[in-house]
């Protein structure tokens, strides 16, 4: 049996939650004070994901870079792969919120989209 400890981020209380795992499956969750905590803990230990926000270079704009984000969540352990994949991306102004900067970033199946008008 494996026990994973984490801090819940669903509200300011920040419960310390313990998740008991067996063969990759959640068997028990303790320390949470609401169902949202249990839900967070379960997904955090089985399939932790994050939205990545970063920058890509921009040609011909008022500024040399423009902000981007992953259009959906990517696996937590792929975050640095995502930003590294953006290193070679250069867009040309004008760009708008929602424009795709890079499709299927780092093989995650998730697109990276522009988050500012520039």
């Amino acid at each position: 049996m494996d026990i994973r400890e984490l801090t819940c981020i669903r509200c300011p209380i920040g419960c310390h939650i313990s998740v008991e795992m067996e063969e990759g499956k959640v068997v028990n969750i303790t320390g949470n004070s609401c169902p949202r905590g249990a839900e967070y803990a379960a997904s955090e230990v089985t399939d932790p994901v994050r939205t990545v926000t970063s920058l890509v270079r921009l040609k011909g704009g008022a500024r040399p870079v423009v902000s981007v984000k992953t259009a959906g969540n990517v696996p937590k352990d792929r975050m640095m792969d995502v930003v590294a994949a953006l290193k070679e991306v250069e867009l040309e102004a004008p760009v708008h919120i929602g424009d795709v900067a890079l499709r299927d970033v780092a093989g995650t199946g998730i697109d990276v989209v522009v988050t500012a008008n520039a």
Partner: protein
Amino acid sequence: MTDMKKDLVIIGGGPAGLSAAVSASREGAEDILIIERDTRLGGILNQCIHNGFGLHTFKEELTGPEYADRYIRQVEDGKIPYMLDTMVVDLAYDDGSGDKIITAMNAKDGLFTISAKAVILAMGCRERPRGALNIPGFRPSGIYSAGTAQYYVNMEGRMPGRKVVILGSGDIGLIMARRMTYEGAKVLCVAELQPYSGGLKRNIVQCLDDFGIPLLLSHTVVDIKGKKRLEGVTIAEVDENRKPIPGTEVFYECDTLLLSCGLIPENELSGKLGVRMNGVTGGAYVNESLETSVPGVYACGNVLHVHDLVDYVSGEADMAGKNAAAFILGRTGTDDGNVINIKTENGVRYSVPSVVRPALMGNTLTVRFRVGNEYRDKDLAVYLNGKQLMRLPKRVMAPGEMEQIVLVKSKVEEIIAASEAKEHEVVIRVEDKA
């Protein structure tokens, strides 16, 4: 004679100014002008490219520029006029007309004046510098406020350094720990003088824990090395009086120190106008309408008090805009002379507003405040004229997270009706569990 006349001038086109403009316009104010000193609307949101904005307002998670864009589009759609690259340098009150005289300048129009019936102060805030912390040592380059580093990285695509220590666990510092890591820098640690973090829990998890960056609570920088560029900092643990404990010093070799040690409302203009200030918040002293001591001058957002979430800024600014519109249109209602002073004590540091005229409050009024320490399993107790109005059990309260209570007009009126006096008092305090 001024160069221009306006009903409402909003100073600042950041989240507060934009929301105030949209709401004032919605409430029927027509002759509005937003004055923004930067080259675009949106204020500091433009450099806050991380997500987490808008969960309350739009029920979705947006980045800063996306959140700003929601409001900018409403300003554009409502054809609310704004001036960019324009700095307000003076603000005065005309005793005769009651108009507010704004002096501003830009490259196109030079120096000019505007008279306005109402003004909304929405200038935001700036970061506290190193000096405010009295960190000893040398004064090399490589020491930045977290917001400065954020500007460099997010707006200019430049790296202010490569090997980073962050002092202060305010949200901007936490966010920058992740941003610097994403862009190729090494963040060694975040040191926090207090035994608790000044930032949001989710930022500690997602900006530090995710990247294995240690958060050193009850630690501070006690020496800065490097005559030219920063070469390193010494960090020591502090005791319960926040004094460094000898023998706990650890040297961190780094070329960059980011400071995230709090924000100060930017109130130079409010001072020129003679607005009464609140010594605790560094912002104006306001009533239930978010009106300052100068009639027709309202304040909202971080220039009033530092917020933790932009959603709250938008909400507060919405109210300021609405009240400013009512002022212009002569719809503020009739005051009956009753006044409630809000007193904060026993762990509650301040409240916004500070004073309430019950006849002029809406059916409900949100009062926002912060506590001065971390509290666990306490009650938040609110009294009006000695009678308990509410008692809210709280699992955790911390200085980094803004708290709020809602006053209900009918309840308030019921209690003050029992008093002969016109002056009343609400007390907000932290108490042990009932």
